[in-house]
């Protein structure tokens, strides 16, 4: 959440000489390193004590080992894919040498998706869902925020649907998509559409609510300026309302993106849609001695990606928002 802190905080910071700033920064890094080291140590000590049906709970070392295992698997798979196409090309070249008019079909490679393929799928899905949610929530929020009556009419619905868990939406969406999304040559696979729609439905609320609040909180003085200047509806929206709401909208977008990522993993797990969630579920069902370590890798990667997505959003906010005094954390 971004909060507005007094200006003097920022000013006081810029007073600090360069050397002091550097010192503070390195201190921060040192403390973060200490925190991480302590966590790894505790994990290591505790993990050895826990015995499960799949052997003892993996410590950091086993997890790191599995990480390299997953990387190696991915490399192997890529090598296999390259070899597959290489063989096809050779066959095609031979066929062309025999008969120059031969009709050739390049067959796609159908290998098992690796961990990294699943990451790609998940990222693509979450971005599609998030963009769709924003494209719905921001304009809708602006329209609702501008009219008190519309707000009164829609607020109960928003409050009703906001807390619905993705797990409850999922069966409905799956059924609806298989009923309505039927085409001979679909652009997207059905599972992708289901995941995207689930993410959209669950993640649009924070952006919607924050946009409404932002539009509603345009100061009455600025509204009066707009009236004195006789700005028309569109200019008023573009020059006064939208910029006023931008900091709120960004707060909403950040919350939405976080929710979108969490929801996606759950949806993939439950619906067996391709992605990181499916990876976790498959490993859980697999129940081999490596499974727990692999799930730990997935957990860490999911956290890391969530963190990176949030940072990305912050970067976007600091580039696009006029309100540079909002402390971004």
């Amino acid at each position: 959440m971004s909060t507005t802190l007094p200006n003097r905080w920022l000013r006081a910071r810029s007073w600090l000489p360069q050397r002091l700033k550097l010192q503070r920064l390195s201190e921060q890094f040192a403390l973060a390193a200490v925190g991480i080291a302590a966590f790894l140590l505790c994990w290591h000590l505790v993990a050895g004590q826990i015995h499960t049906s799949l052997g003892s709970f993996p410590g950091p070392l086993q997890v790191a080992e599995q990480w390299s295992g997953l990387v190696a698997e991915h490399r192997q798979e890529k090598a296999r894919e390259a070899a597959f196409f290489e063989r096809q090309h050779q066959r095609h070249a031979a066929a062309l040498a025999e008969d120059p008019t031969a009709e050739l079909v390049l067959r796609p490679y159908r290998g098992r998706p690796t961990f990294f393929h699943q990451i790609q799928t998940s990222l693509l899905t979450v971005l599609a869902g998030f963009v769709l949610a924003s494209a719905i929530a921001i304009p809708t929020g602006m329209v609702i925020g501008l009219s008190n009556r519309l707000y009164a009419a829609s607020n109960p619905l928003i409050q009703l649907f906001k807390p619905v868990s993705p797990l409850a939406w999922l069966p409905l969406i799956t059924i609806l998509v298989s009923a309505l999304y039927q085409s001979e040559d679909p652009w997207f696979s059905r599972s992708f559409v289901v995941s995207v729609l689930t993410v959209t439905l669950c993640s649009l609320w924070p952006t919607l609510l924050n946009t409404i609040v932002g539009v509603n909180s345009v100061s009455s003085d600025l509204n009066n300026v707009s009236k004195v200047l006789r700005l028309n509806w569109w200019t008023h929206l573009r020059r006064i309302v939208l910029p006023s709401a931008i900091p709120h909208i960004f707060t909403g977008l950040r919350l939405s993106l976080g929710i979108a990522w969490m929801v996606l993993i759950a949806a993939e797990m439950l619906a067996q849609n391709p992605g990181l969630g499916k990876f976790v579920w498959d490993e859980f069902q697999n129940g081999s001695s490596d499974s727990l370590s692999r799930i730990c890798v997935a957990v860490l990667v999911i956290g890391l990606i969530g963190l990176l997505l949030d940072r990305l959003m912050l970067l976007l906010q600091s580039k696009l928002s006029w309100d540079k005094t909002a402390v971004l954390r």
Partner: protein
Amino acid sequence: MQKPHLELSQLGIEFPGANGPFIALQQVDLQIARGEFISLIGHSGCGKSTVLNLVAGLLQATTGGVLLNNKEVNAPGPERAVVFQNHSLLPWLTVYQNVELAVKQVFRGQKRKAEMRDWIEHNLALVQMQHASDRRPAEISGGMKQRVGIARALAMQPEVLLMDEPFGALDALTRAHLQDSLMEIQARLNNTVIMITHDVDEAVLLSDRIVMMTNGPAATIGEVLPITLPRPRNRIELADCATYNHYRHQVLSFLYEKQRKIEPLPSQAALKPAPGVKRA
């Protein structure tokens, strides 16, 4: 007889309240000539801002009305530019863009691009702010913001300039400085000005007439005091001027004898100097 430039006629307004309508203002009659500088003074809550908002068109009168050049005013418009108490600049626009927004809106189709730019720069120069035209409101001081607010209002080339305690939030030195600037600009452009103030010195120094309002509810004009001090006026010379001090005395006696707020003051607060008596 020549028709007045701006006329407030039988002006009154009621607001719906819990126990029936609340009469905020009634029977406000005032005729203002072109180029006149009017101050509205009175205790808090007496409806000064309501009068200003009625002239601006931001509020609608229940009875009577406002006539500008003999035409009734019932909606806001740039010919009655408002300088707001807390500057009301758009924080996401630079100083230049803030004035530009007003100029583009008012002179669309009348001025060419280069003319608009000259006009914006001219108005920023009037308030001595051209050096900060690329800064945002958050990066300049309160006094500078208020200057830009004035420049934005002047750039609309208004017939009437409405100022709602324009210097109320500023420190005494900055306020004195801006008062001098305002006097100079007004002498040059001959704008009609209605200014709300709490500051007795400010009112006497700047005005052609001081309109003193009675306490609400049902507030109205109590007395109108014409100030005939010659212009240009110099605050230092006036500090010893008997006429000036006589005017001050009249305003003070209206505010603190005739229209004393009836609320009993705690004994401690009574010892402190009353607000509005501080020297500019």
